[in-house]
């Protein structure tokens, strides 16, 4: 297995942990409805994102370090670009479906709890990172990594 594949796997695993954390926090009773009183949950979410981005940053540094002899060539760039395109489509579909779901759920009320906006904000970042990471893994596998 190449170093690039290992980096991708670590990235997907780290963002999956963040995704699970975000899901657990937002599915707890009262998180959405009483968002303003959720100081601890907000800090937990920030810590989860810190974990995801710190690992991302560490991996980028590892990639750039000449010590490890890491090389990214034209095929890697093609795969990365395709993964970004797939990730973009998944993200658009996700936001569209979630928005429609919220619209139908709160159509009669005329307003919705502000916590949903936070869910959209956090989950958009998670879905974007995960969809690009997973697409890139699948594309590498398809090409015989």
């Amino acid at each position, binding site marked *: 297995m190449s170093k690039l594949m290992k980096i991708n796997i670590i990235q997907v695993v780290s963002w999956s942990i963040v995704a699970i954390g975000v899901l657990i926090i937002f599915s707890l009773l009262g998180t959405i409805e009483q968002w303003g009183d959720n100081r601890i949950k907000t800090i937990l979410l920030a810590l989860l994102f810190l974990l995801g981005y710190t690992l991302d940053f560490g991996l980028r540094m590892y990639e750039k370090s000449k010590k490890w002899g890491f*090389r990214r*060539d*034209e095929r*890697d760039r093609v795969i990365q670009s395709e993964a970004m395109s797939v990730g973009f489509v998944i993200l658009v579909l996700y936001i569209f479906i979630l928005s429609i779901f919220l619209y139908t759920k709160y159509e009669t009320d005329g307003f919705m709890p502000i916590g949903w906006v936070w869910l959209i904000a956090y989950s958009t970042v998670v879905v974007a990172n995960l969809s690009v990471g997973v697409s890139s893994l699948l594309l590498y596998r*398809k090409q*015989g990594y």
Partner: protein
Amino acid sequence: MGEQFDLNNRLKQIRRSRLDLTQQDLADQVGCTRQTIIALEQNKYNPSLILALRLAKALEVTVEDIFSLKINE
């Protein structure tokens, strides 16, 4: 309906004809990763024009010796 093309290559045969040339050696000569050479030899990746030219130069053959178009109708 227009014609569709597949890019075939004889990279593996040509590289193997150079007895001491490994995939890693070839990758180092043309400036790509060994995984890219593997993907090329398995016909899973179409190289850029620059990489195709560099491969031809490294193997001392023409691009047409390595790559050919197969028409799918």
